[in-house]
């Protein structure tokens, strides 16, 4: 097992591939690294395998071949070190917001007292701005609020890495904007390492330090070409950007056009 080398990447994915037998591989030769504190987005068409990669990173699925390392150790199954925010909030409907997050906190630190757990819960509920709803059940919350609880739950366990699977896909455009701002504020504040899947180009440009462009697998005259990471784009925009002022920044449209071009024309395997 390779030892952790400084600068070699906090999260290292090497030659990952996944095939759902007997079909040919959905993607192959996927390799990338993540540094601590980085926010990386992966963007691509449906079916290219983004969620599968995330599930492999979360430990909920396993790769057909290739390796994934975090902090020099190979990933083996789900772990509290990799928190997940699911696309559908996945809150437990029989628990209040407080108890939902407390469940996660107790899983992480089972030796904590009730008071300590409650303090942690309240801290992260305040972080997402849901103090007023802390004792409500999920059925009493709106979609946006439920997703914020999901985010608070993932942050409350203070994982080494956060995995977000299109967390805002089910929200309307207005709510999405508000929560994107909040997520960015929280991530900057906690210096969290984040890997996020998204369909929204503007969201990727707002939040990510690096954007991975993934292509779909396709049939070519030479046979089946599985999907892979076609390109890695480093976000040139200044780190202190806001949603409101994003489109005024230099280089925004160049970046945006480049990504949209990719999705429209080059999303097929190169």
């Amino acid at each position, binding site marked *: 097992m390779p030892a952790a080398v400084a600068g070699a990447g906090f999260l290292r994915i090497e030659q990952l591939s996944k095939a759902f037998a007997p079909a040919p591989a959905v993607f192959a030769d996927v390799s990338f690294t993540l540094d601590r504190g980085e926010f990386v987005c992966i963007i691509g068409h449906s079916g290219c395998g983004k969620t599968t990669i995330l599930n492999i990173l*979360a*430990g*909920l699925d396993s790769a057909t071949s290739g390796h994934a390392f975090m902090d020099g150790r190979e990933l083996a*199954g*789900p*772990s*509290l070190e*990799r*928190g*997940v925010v*699911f696309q*559908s909030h*996945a809150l*437990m*409907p*029989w*628990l209040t917001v407080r108890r939902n997050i407390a*469940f*996660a906190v107790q*899983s*992480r630190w089972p030796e904590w007292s009730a008071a300590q757990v409650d303090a942690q819960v309240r801290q992260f509920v305040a972080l997402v701005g849901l103090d007023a709803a802390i004792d409500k*059940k*999920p*059925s009493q919350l709106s979609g946006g609020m439920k997703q914020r609880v999901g985010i608070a739950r993932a942050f409350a*366990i203070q994982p080494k890495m956060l995995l977000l699977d299109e967390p805002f896909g089910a929200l309307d455009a207005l709510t999405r904007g508000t929560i994107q701002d909040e997520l960015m504020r929280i991530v900057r504040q906690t210096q969290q390492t984040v890997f996020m899947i998204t369909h929204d180009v503007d969201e990727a440009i707002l939040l990510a330090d690096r954007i991975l462009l993934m292509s779909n697998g396709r049939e070519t005259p030479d046979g089946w070409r599985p999907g892979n990471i076609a390109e890695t784009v480093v976000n040139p925009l200044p780190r202190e950007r806001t949603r409101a002022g994003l489109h005024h920044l230099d280089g925004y449209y160049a970046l945006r056009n480049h990504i949209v071009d990719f999705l429209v024309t080059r999303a097929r395997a190169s």
Partner: protein
Amino acid sequence: MTRAMNLKAALLSLLLLLVLLGIWQLATMSSGGAGPSQAGMTAEQIEYQKMLGKDPGQVKSAGFPTPAEMGATAWKHLTNPFYDNGPNDKGIAIQLAWSLGRVGLGFLLACLVAVPLGFVIGMSPLLHKAFDPFIQVLKPISPLAWMPLALYTIKDSSTSGIFVIFICSVWPMLLNTAFGVASVKREWLAVASTLEVKPLRRAFRVILPAAAPTILTGMRISMGIAWLVIVAAEMLVGGTGIGYFVWNEWNNLSLTNVIFAILVIGVVGMLLDLSFAALQRRVTYVE
């Protein structure tokens, strides 16, 4: 508004009750009442009538009792529910207590078997398929068919009654628990695995609360069956209990007591169902 509708429904129920009582009264008015009067008969004629079995002095309950007679009997039972005049003559509350005790014990045993077994079957498709033929064959067997087997092996009639309650009320709980556990949403299980929740904690904190409404529905159905079974079982094996009371009073041809006991059985069954419905409401959640 719900309150207005509730009021209307209550009034309609009352009206239905009065109509039913009225029909009852009309239907029994002709057949009920005293036998032939004693006036105008010589001593020999009275003796002759008695020999024929038509004692003029006796007021026989010939035919279906009237509501008035019914009311009198009910009042007699309800005002003195705890009397104990020997093995065949006890107050209605004592009879009920015995029946409820047997039901409680049989139901509890059924719970202790059905919920854990249902849990295991629900979690493992393999075990589900393996147990399925046994469940499907044993489920439709009537309690009365179990009785001879139980009496022969267990010998004690009271314990046989409890066993029969157990074997008949275990199936709805078992199947509902298995179904509830198998239907737990995958995303909640995914959350539990990303939080590294141990299997036992996951069973109690995620799977059980998620399946609780379905499990409690099964319990409610099982309780209904258990109450049905105890009456039938007690008729067969005797002892103290509301079922045996019905059978005993039938042998005494005391129809008023039989009808009274039937009504009591119905009311107690309804109360049991209502209490389980309340429990069910407490564990129900909205997604």
